[in-house]
């Protein structure tokens, strides 16, 4: 489909006899927010692992900006502009908050020679990165904790930090794996607004795996229901919100039968 | 036939490595600790044997159970005195590895201070031997094989039939679940260490009768045994046996065709080949499924 920034074409992943992901095809438009929902074990995180290259495809293809990324090493896929967070914030415990964000940038100073020689461009770039990092931290209210160790943050703060770390790399697509888990209501609200800003203001494409249906229906442009490794249902939130298959997936067949 | 002698030597040293390898593998599979200090537990067993047999005059036979007891106690002390406190204070397997390294240095130094670096011998003169087709099979060769032939089936029986043995295998398979099921992991760790150390003690007796005792005798032997575990496949105990014999024969091949200096190189070369081409070892991968 034209304009699609990410395309999954008949993607499958087998583990022995088990088909964790079975013939999944989807197409994601740039700048949209797409949600992947479904019961536990449906294969949602596996899809993420396939897109990011952590798991190899058993069959099918994945295209980013029209070019196939299947088989590329994960770091190469990430470099093309694909960022990803994990269900667990997985922060760097021993590093300071601001260092997390700075580490996310792609900088000249990562080259050992540049680090030793410290030319004016390297120094300028590094300083600019630190300033950007502080600004990003400010936007989520973490600026005053910039020099604390990440392990001293609350769980919710760590969650936001892990997202900032990913955003620092300026990815074009951001994959967020269950970002609202463990967050209180205010933080969920903040996260929702952050996701919306990513898409509307920064023109990023967001792919979410989520269980929190309120968030999903609030924020998504498209929703895909994944059940048993296949897509059971796709559509806009308003269309599928009340769809019997959706209700069945989350509440079971009895409830689905109850709905007219 | 000269080849025959190398074969015999290879099988005998393979049996020694097997005793060490299986002990080490048991400990590693269940506790995930890279207990490289196994080397100085082994050496400690040899020194206890020497002390009891020669210095205290018990003689070669009566001293044997003391040697095994000594090694067992030493291994247990390391577990209880060093590894357990590390775990209790939040350390993980990396910290334990470093402490294990330190233990090697500590005990080798102690042995050197107590006994000097000279090799202590336990007997003089040639061993009684059969001569078969020009090759000599000594009583020690026979003893080593006999020990292995007896201990391994016993060990397997223990692991499969006894309650503790089954608990040990459960621990190797799934430590979190084992803990939840109320198994006392501390006690199991202690028992595992004792069994592994006892096997090392047995190996120490056999080797010291042949080559004597010196402070650094443990390291090469245990390193070779660890490579044997890798070769056989981590997680599969009989694989360690196979790896041990394979390496021993390879070493004898090197001695025969090159010279004895290459023994270490052969072991390291095998390690490198396996790590690069087949890190799961011969029997590793799905088949192993983490049996203790």
């Amino acid at each position, binding site marked *: 489909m034209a304009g699609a920034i990410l395309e999954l074409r008949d993607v499958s992943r087998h583990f022995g006899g088990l088909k964790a992901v079975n013939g999944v095809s989807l197409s994601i438009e740039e700048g949209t927010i797409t949600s992947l929902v479904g019961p536990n074990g449906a294969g949602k995180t596996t899809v993420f692992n396939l897109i990011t290259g952590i798991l190899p495809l058993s069959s099918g293809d994945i295209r980013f900006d029209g070019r196939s990324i299947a088989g590329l090493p994960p770091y190469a896929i990430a470099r093309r502009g694909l960022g990803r967070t994990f269900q667990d914030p997985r922060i*760097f415990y021993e590093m300071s908050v601001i260092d997390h964000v700075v580490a996310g940038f792609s900088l000249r100073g990562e080259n050992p020679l540049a680090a030793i020689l410290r030319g004016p461009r390297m120094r300028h770039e590094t300083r600019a990165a630190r300033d950007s990092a502080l600004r990003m931290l400010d936007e989520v209210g973490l600026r005053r904790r910039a020099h604390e160790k990440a392990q001293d943050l609350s769980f919710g703060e760590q969650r936001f930090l892990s997202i900032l770390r990913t955003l620092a790399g300026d990815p074009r697509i951001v994959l967020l794996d269950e970002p609202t888990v463990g967050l209180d209501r205010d933080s969920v609200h903040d996260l929702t607004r952050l996701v919306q800003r990513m898409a509307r203001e920064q023109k990023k494409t967001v792919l979410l795996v989520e269980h929190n249906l309120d968030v999903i229906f609030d924020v998504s442009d498209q929703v895909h229901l994944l059940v048993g490794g296949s897509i059971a249902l796709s559509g806009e939130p308003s269309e599928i919100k009340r769809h019997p298959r959706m209700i069945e997936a989350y509440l079971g067949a009895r409830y689905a039968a109850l709905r007219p | 036939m000269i080849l025959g002698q190398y074969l015999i030597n290879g099988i005998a040293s393979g049996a020694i490595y097997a005793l060490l390898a299986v002990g080490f593998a048991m400990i590693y599979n269940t506790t995930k600790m890279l207990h490289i200090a196994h080397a100085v537990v082994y050496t400690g067993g040899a020194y206890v044997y020497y002390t009891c047999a020669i210095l205290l005059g018990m003689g070669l036979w009566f001293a044997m159970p003391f040697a095994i007891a000594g090694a067992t106690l030493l291994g247990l002390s390391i577990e209880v005195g060093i590894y357990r406190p590390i775990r209790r204070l939040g350390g993980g397997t990396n910290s334990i590895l470093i402490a294990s390294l330190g233990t090697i240095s500590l005990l080798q130094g102690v042995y050197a201070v107590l006994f000097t670096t000279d090799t202590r011998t336990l007997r003089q003169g040639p061993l009684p031997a059969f001569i078969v087709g020009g090759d000599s099979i000594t009583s020690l060769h026979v003893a080593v094989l006999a020990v292995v032939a007896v201990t391994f089936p016993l060990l397997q029986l223990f692991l499969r039939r006894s309650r503790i043995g089954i608990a040990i295998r459960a621990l190797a398979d799934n430590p979190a679940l084992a803990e939840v099921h109320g198994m006392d992991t501390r006690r199991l760790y202690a028992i595992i260490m004792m069994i592994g150390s006892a096997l090392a003690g047995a190996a120490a007796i056999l080797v010291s009768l042949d080559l004597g005792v010196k402070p650094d005798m443990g390291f090469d032997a245990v390193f070779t045994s660890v490579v044997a575990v890798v070769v056989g496949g981590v997680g599969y105990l009989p694989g360690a046996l196979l790896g041990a014999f394979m390496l021993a024969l390879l070493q004898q091949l090197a001695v025969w065709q090159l010279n004895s200096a290459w023994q270490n190189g052969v072991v390291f070369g095998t390690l490198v080949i396996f790590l690069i081409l087949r890190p799961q070892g011969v029997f590793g991968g799905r088949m192993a499924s983490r049996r203790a």
Partner: protein
Amino acid sequence: MDYFVNLLSQVCIYVIQVATLDLLVGYTGIFSFGHAAFIGIGAYTTALLLTKLHLGFGAVLLGSMLAPMALAFAVGLPTLRLSGDYFVLGTIGLTNVTASILTNWVAVTNGPFGIYGIPDISLFGWKVVTPGQFLAVTIVVTAVVLLVKHLLISAPFGLTLQAIREDETVTVMMGKNVARMRAIAFAIAGAGAGLSGLLTAYNLRFIDPTLFDLQLVIFAWAALFVGGCASIVGNILGPLILVGFPEALRFIGLQGGAVAHVREILYGGLLIVMTIFRPQGIAGNYRIR
């Protein structure tokens, strides 16, 4: 007084060894027990280039760093991919085998007899003859190494290494080529270790394989641990304490051949005690788990 000056030079050499090991362990999370191999290669390259090929200081300087770097790349690229325990095993094997080759390849290394007659440092006509002059050179080299280390770790390069140490998968997801970075860190540390080998060769005027075995690795780890990881101050404190303590004992009367073994006991004991009670060392910024 000469004795004390020589001791200080030795401490500086150890500081280089510990600081380079720290780059691997404390910053990148690479548990290398192979440091002795790189130090030994550096020392032997130095000794051979000087005694057999009669090359000058510049060539020797280069050689002592390039040879271990080449080894680090050759060995590092395949082994760094391995999971932790296997990598540890591989590096222990590396130390063993290097010591073995140095001992047995008699044609090149003169085997267990070692290499004698290493001349003084000769730089642009200046000869470094007295222990005091050698100490001056050594301090300068050590300072340069520490400076380079500081520049590396305070730059984004250092941040990426720490990220790798903390969580490799996440760092990959950040678009970093983790495998390459680890190989680079390994090679840089190897080059630094080789430099300490060069200084060792010039310092002792004579080297043999027993200088570069697992005992050296254990010493370096003990010094690293006592001083503390990820800390330049720690890198300096560790060797100072580990060398100073036995010297103090010697002062109060401990004599003879037992001293070497008492050192082994001391280093091993310190390593054990530090891992149990104070894994971050005296001045460390990172605690090994």
